[in-house]
């Protein structure tokens, strides 16, 4: 197998020069996003470098409790990002979304690592951490889109929701069209992305594995499994997040609480 070319710091710096394109375009159209883009890029760099350092240690130690603790930290950060990006309040959504995220990754990780790959130790850092990271990274977008679609649409179309309730719908029946809409909005892009995988886009993980020296066949098999686990954990997380947060987002009469929104 051919050795992997390392990217030295000078070349890494050259790579960063590509960021001048988005920054230039965002600046030209006065989007107000230049500062955010620079901060996001710096954050990404620092975070990945730190994670690189951290993962080196965590892989060496490979302690189950430490790995689980890291997983909980990742889930908490993912939850925090979700809530911040949805415009909903932490007070009502932190607990239900964190619990949903943990349950969904627990189920999918256990199935994938324990049953599909059949690891002797499902807490093995080399598998548990990157795979959970992939699941969380992809789930965040699904949950943000679906929570926004669900709660904002009920708020915008309060009249429709009330019409259902006051004409005999149970709460579950009244929420069903909004749930359907949220799932469609969140998963239509996932389905489209899944359908073109390999033809138009080569996924990051597979590319990474191939660049890292893995056999392309092994990389493809992992990628297929990852696509399926990402889809499953995403939809599970969306469903649980909406179902669990319903308990806090509606009053005892089934009315959506206005105070769940940060901005409205």
């Amino acid at each position, binding site marked *: 197998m051919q050795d992997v070319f390392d990217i030295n710091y000078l070349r890494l710096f050259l790579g960063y020069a590509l960021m001048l394109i988005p920054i230039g375009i965002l600046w030209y159209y006065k989007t107000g996003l230049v500062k955010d883009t620079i901060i996001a890029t710096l954050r990404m760099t620092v975070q990945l470098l730190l994670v690189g350092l951290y993962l080196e240690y965590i892989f060496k130690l490979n302690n189950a409790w430490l790995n689980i603790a890291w997983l909980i930290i990742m889930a908490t950060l993912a939850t925090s990002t979700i809530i911040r990006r949805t415009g909903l309040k932490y007070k009502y959504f932190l607990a239900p979304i964190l619990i949903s995220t943990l349950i969904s990754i627990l189920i999918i990780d256990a199935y994938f690592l324990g049953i599909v790959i059949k690891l002797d130790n499902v807490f093995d850092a080399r598998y548990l951490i990157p795979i959970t990271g992939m699941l969380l990274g992809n789930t965040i977008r699904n949950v943000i889109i679906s929570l926004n679609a669900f709660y904002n649409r009920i708020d915008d179309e309060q009249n429709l929701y009330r019409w259902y309730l006051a004409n005999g719908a149970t*709460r579950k029946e009244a929420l069903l069209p909004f749930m359907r809409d949220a799932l469609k909005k969140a998963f239509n892009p996932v389905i489209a992305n899944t359908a073109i995988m390999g033809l138009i886009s080569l996924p990051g993980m597979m590319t990474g594995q191939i660049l890292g020296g893995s056999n392309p066949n092994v990389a493809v098999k992992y990628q297929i499994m990852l696509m399926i686990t990402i889809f499953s954990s995403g939809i599970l997380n969306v469903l649980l997040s909406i179902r669990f947060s319903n308990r806090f987002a509606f009053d005892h009469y089934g009315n959506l609480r206005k105070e769940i929104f940060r901005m409205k």
Partner: protein
Amino acid sequence: MIQIQNLFITFGNEHIYEDFSLNIKKGEKIAISGESGKGKSTFLNLLTGFISDFEGDVFVDGLELNPKNIYNIRKKYAWLPQETALNMQSVKDLFFTPFNFSLNKEKRPEQKQIDDIFTAFSLDESILDKKVKEISGGQKQRVLLASCVLQKKAILLLDEPSSALDKRIKKRVTDHILGLKNTTIIAVTHDEYWMKCSDKVISLDKDN
């Protein structure tokens, strides 16, 4: 059928209802009138449980209005909203959606019932094949009213039921709805003919 005692509703600093009491008998036809902001729609929103912050006792068919009873209370209603621009694609959905709920499934109307009510409301049945955006406000209002009537509920709550209807159709629709025996009807309305045909008119312009 409906008893309201010592009702207080306040929005901010504004007292919408202050010590308001009302008894509505079974089968009674009530018209609620008044200027904007006097709490007409609030009254319907209270009965449907869409206002959870109130003081006083409200009973609907013997059930106290509270979170525990709200579903059983809502079972008794068919509700026509003032804003009929519900986000639905087809007129068929607008008409049949309430009959998809488990509570109303058995009441899904047969063809004869649809024919009769559409005739009474001057609606052509081909309207069911149209898109909602293709029909007028008055047609939407009549389709929703027809759907409410066919649910055969004990209580109809109607928010401006004739506001988009022309004079001739207004009379036909009003006569049909207010002629429903044993159905309690509470309508928020500015329509003089509707008020004239109702058993009681409650004006909210006076102090509650």
